[in-house]
């Protein structure tokens, strides 16, 4: 606990406690702790001298931020592109496959790999031309 308070203070100080750096600070905090706990958010509010309501407003607005840890998920964070270019080459079939086999994923609208869809991103790694078989192989590599 004390350790995370210290780490959080360092993250804020790294941005000179500037309120305009809030998104950067939230990204770093989430990277460090896996999600943004209530305690973390309250501390950020104090460090940046902004209201808790402002922080909640920001965290709830952006899809990237999580206020809870991934429940029951131990694997990597996977995103499947659901946008038009991937739809045109079977992205929906891939998403259905993931859903039916119980693979957890988030919807994302465009990963910028539109000529090599369907596209998937696992943590920060991008994959192209992904079908069910390739998805299984990739996930195997990530566990």
């Amino acid at each position, binding site marked *: 606990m004390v350790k995370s308070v210290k780490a959080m203070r360092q993250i804020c100080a790294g941005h000179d406690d500037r309120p305009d750096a809030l998104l*950067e600070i939230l990204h770093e905090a989430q990277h460090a702790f896996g999600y943004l706990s209530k305690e973390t958010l309250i501390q950020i509010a104090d460090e940046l001298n902004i209201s808790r309501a402002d922080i909640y407003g920001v965290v709830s607005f952006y899809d990237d931020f999580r206020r809870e840890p991934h429940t029951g998920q131990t694997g990597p964070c996977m995103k499947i592109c659901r946008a038009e270019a991937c739809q*045109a080459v079977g992205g929906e079939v891939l998403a259905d496959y993931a859903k039916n086999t119980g693979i957890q994923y988030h919807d994302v609208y465009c990963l910028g790999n539109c000529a090599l869809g369907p596209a998937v991103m696992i943590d920060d790694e991008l994959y192209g031309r992904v079908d069910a078989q390739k998805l299984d192989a990739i996930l195997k590599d990530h566990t």
Partner: protein
Amino acid sequence: MTNPLTIYVPCDAAALSVGADDVAIAIEQEARQRNLDIKIIRNGSRGMLWLEPLVEIETSKGRVAYGPITVKNVQSLFDANFLNGGDHKCALGLTEAIPYFANQERLTFARCGIIDPLDISDYEAHGGLAGLRTALAMTCEDIVDIVTKSGLRGRGGAGFPTGIKWKTALEAKANQKYICANADEGDSGTFADRMLMEGDPFSLLEGMTIAGLAVGATIGYIYIRSEYPRAVKTMKRAVEIWQDANLLGDRTFTIHIRMGAGAYICGEETSMLESLEGKRGQVKVKPPIPAMEGLFGKPTIINNVLSLASVPIILDKGAEFYQNYGQGRARGTQPFQLGGDIKRGGLIEKAFGVTLRELVEGFGGGTHSGKPVRTVQAGGPLGAYIPVSGFDVEMDYEKLAEAGAMLGHGGLVVFNENVNMAHQARFAMKFCEVESCGKCTPCRIGSVRGKETLDKIIAAEDVADNLVLLEDICELMTDGSLCAMGGLTPMPVRSAIKHFGEDFTPAKDGG
């Protein structure tokens, strides 16, 4: 001892997505085993994405290409003596003679895929920094003037004349001004900003710096979407190298990178400014326009990555040089991005005026699946679906508007005959529902009602009445929304109904 042979293996995210890293490692290992002296340069992508990973070898005749290369055929490449341009089933000949590449007019992407993205001397050797040096010797007014005369218009989608925006910011009096590069490239079917940031990051920094000199701004921000982690990483490193190079003498221009957090709406300029200030990315009412009152209330130029990256060549070669490309009121070149079900997908930079047919059928070669093309969605998720009968449209801002479509950021998504256009129309509404910032009612509620109405149409419930209602919702969203999100969502919906009405009416005998 001879010089090591230079091999290029791209580090562009699209190339990596199909195994470029593994290919680079395999080449290195194979060369070591064979005691061959090689040097691997990780370049950006040439934009011929169906050929990725595209491996190139430097030869006396020029760079020779092989692709798509997988780890499995690395050994056979060496056996075929590819280091001397030997023949192989993946051999493509001289890269620059490949018709897809040779038939382009690369101005903004002149260096992308050619240089080492983070080698500033390589950048300079290929024409980089010349524009900045020209600008350093000019007055603010003259820089703005040359950009205005070039005819450059915003490449983000709105097509607003860049020079006029700059002039407004130049004339605004303030103790601080800002330059913001909009790299929140959220439109499905677009990847040009990403390719440029990963393949030629200095061109964006040079363009921003020139913009700073032109309007008297000393601080710049690049707002990059979080879905582009590699672009963020490359740009961060590029900024460090750029700042260390001290290119401005006694003048300063500091650039910061900010990462978005998964909100499509932050590509809208006022929303982006809010996000840069650490707030919810909600759209603001204009006026005041950002060029007069933008980031932190100060005059701010917000330009798309491609607009800014086009500035250095304009300063270097002159307004007339750039003017000479294009047609009508659309001057210069546009990087088109070909995606979806397409045989040869990738980036095609052409002067305005090329037809959609030349791009999709000529460059693209039809679908990847081999099925007939049914439609192309041009300009991202808010753009129109164009039927094959409309493919002769010349690609420029005005010609597309006449055809009821738009250029947007230049994305072209190809669909084959299996596409159901009622589902695509529903998706447009759903996308707006998911991504609306919630500020104005037509967008926030209209998208939900639009989706529900399309659900009824798809379920064949009172189709005629519901189509009237849907048109009503579309009209309201178009006229009443605060920004382009709600205002343009009806464009794909209406175009789908107009050109593919049969998908919206219940199937007749045998469907």
